């Protein structure tokens, strides 16, 4: 079956402005050859530390930025080179929910109009039909119909996120990109929004690219998970395989760093040394070699490829290649 989203060899390099780096010209290699696919009704979780390129992947897929190389296919159709006018038809099928519900909603529009806007822009239905659809969406995401006349600042963080979800659903998309959609929410409210997203997925067979840095959240919502480090995917696997039998040393370190869930599980754990290196001059060979506890000489010079085993569990590590 054709995947809903198919990304191949995606690269995004940002030129460095001269002001930042004197005369030395260079580029931020934000995303450096990323490939993945998402099937119908599937959630791919995308995790990694700050600056590894998660949002850049999301923005490239949404065509909010121009990729430097690679291709993006939506429902089988190559949208990489489409001009804005030609994109219009595809925009309906792909929607986004951002982390910060405060800044992603127009503060001067009523909640009802925020949700109706995409319908109006696409000329879908007459006024009455639009109102009816908005009311239904409000009900579906757990907002009261009378809240349609309120402004974003009159909503709590979780309610604003529901509003963002209602708006994203208005056009009946097949793919929703969530860029840290629950990261700013309190635990109790976060649980409400995660459950809502999972319910809606079942109901509408939605596909999600779910970007997050919280591994617990990602484990809950994802069917498959991709781990990024410095612009590359270093491991991708079905959820259970990734969390129970990670293959890449970086994934292991990420999991080890997550706080325990009960005080009796406290342990001396593997703590990664140092910080993530700069994406302007990423390390040679394997990009993780400067922090990898098991690196060998070969890792400095030779870049490991992302090799999948027969279960679709892929990792990019010289020492952890699948048994043949």
């Amino acid at each position: 079956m054709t995947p809903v989203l198919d990304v191949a060899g995606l690269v995004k390099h940002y030129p460095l402005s001269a002001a930042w780096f004197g005369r030395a010209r260079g580029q931020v290699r934000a995303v450096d050859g990323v490939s993945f696919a998402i099937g119908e009704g599937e959630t791919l979780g995308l995790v990694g530390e700050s600056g590894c390129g998660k949002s850049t992947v999301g923005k490239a897929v949404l065509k909010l930025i121009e990729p430097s190389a690679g291709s993006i296919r939506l429902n089988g159709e190559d949208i990489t080179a489409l001009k804005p006018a030609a994109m219009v038809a595809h925009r309906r099928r792909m929607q986004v929910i951002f982390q910060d519900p405060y800044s992603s909603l127009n503060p001067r529009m009523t909640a009802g109009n925020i949700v109706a806007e995409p319908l109006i822009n696409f000329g879908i239905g007459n006024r009455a039909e639009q109102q009816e659809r908005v009311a239904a969406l409000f009900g579906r995401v757990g907002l009261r119909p009378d809240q349609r006349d309120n402004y974003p600042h009159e909503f709590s963080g979780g309610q604003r996120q529901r509003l963002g979800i209602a708006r994203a659903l208005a056009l009946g998309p097949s793919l929703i990109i969530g860029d840290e959609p629950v990261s700013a929410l309190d635990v109790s409210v976060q649980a409400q929004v995660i459950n809502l997203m999972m319910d809606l997925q079942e109901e509408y067979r939605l596909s999600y690219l779910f970007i997050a840095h919280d591994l617990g959240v990602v484990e809950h919502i994802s069917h498959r998970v991709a781990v990024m480090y410095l612009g590359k995917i270093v491991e991708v696997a079905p959820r259970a395989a990734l969390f129970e039998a990670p293959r890449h040393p970086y994934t292991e370190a990420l999991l080890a760093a997550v706080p325990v869930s009960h005080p009796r599980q406290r342990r001396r754990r593997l703590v990664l040394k140092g910080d993530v290196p700069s994406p302007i001059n990423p390390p040679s060979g394997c990009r993780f070699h400067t922090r990898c506890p098991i690196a060998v000489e070969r890792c400095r010079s030779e870049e490991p490829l992302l090799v999948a085993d027969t279960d679709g569990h892929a990792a990019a590590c010289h020492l952890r290649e699948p048994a043949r």
Partner: protein
Amino acid sequence: MTGLAVSQPVLVVEGLRTEFATGEGHPMVAVDGLSLYVRRGETLCIVGESGCGKSLTALSILRLLPRPYGRIGAGRVLLDGQDLVQVTEAEMRAVRGRAISMIFQEPMSSLNPVITIGRQIAETVMVHEGLDWADCMDRALAMLRQVRIPEPERRLQEYPHQLSGGMRQRVTIAMALACRPRLLLADEPTTALDVTIQAQILDLIRDLQAKTGTAVVLITHDLGVVAEMAERVLVMYAGTKVEEAGVEELFDNPTHPYTRGLMAAMPHLGGAGGGRRRLHEIEGVVPSLMARPAGCAFAPRCELATERCRREAPPLVGIGGTHSVACWVTAGEGVLA
């Protein structure tokens, strides 16, 4: 535990009420009758969701409430027996940074952007220890080493913006512990950091605490951080303490419906088990300070709420050992069973 560790608490807060003056006579109460204590070498975690009054509790202890409206309306803050609510502002300045240090979520707020890292640390040392400048710079270098900043000589010459977030937080920890404070208040010190960096910082706080015997009050909204760090835990909801216990007891027997809800709502690793499952939801939202309900503040969201809960606020009662809870229904469970 050594004999010292079970001695008198370093900090005792009794009946703290923190309020904001409003135009309409009645002040807005943000922290309501909070009591806590922490002993030498011990870590007390304060946990609760956004707006429950965690930061204001720390700021009250240091008397750094937002001016002009914030004030301590009632209560005592005893540091080794001395009531900080009563001392003069000059005495308070001597307490801050020496007897009590604080680190914040955003390290930039405690660093001066236009002064090099080395000078900032050296100045802190100078103010409190009165060493000469060269000795202070030596101390600064030693401290960067102690918090395991790579290339410490180079970092001394750099400005805060040239450091990563994790390195900046290590610098603020170095500064906070420079004068071996009796008490460290850490307000969400790792919330803005990635998990691998969070793990480094939590390890660092633990190691330094073991060396200095500093009492730590660690504020967080993350029960995972509590499970990693706390000896004792205080759960806050809407400005009040709703539950307090030793950390294992709290995780084994969470008793307040809010604490139970929080634990069930939190996605944790391995929690998904075999398949994706729904998380437990706590319906509704935290009440705003202006609209705090009469009776138990959790009642509008509580599945167990009774008429009495909506009328009358439950008192905090002991339910065995050092475990206490403020709930009409669940506090009695053990007794009834």
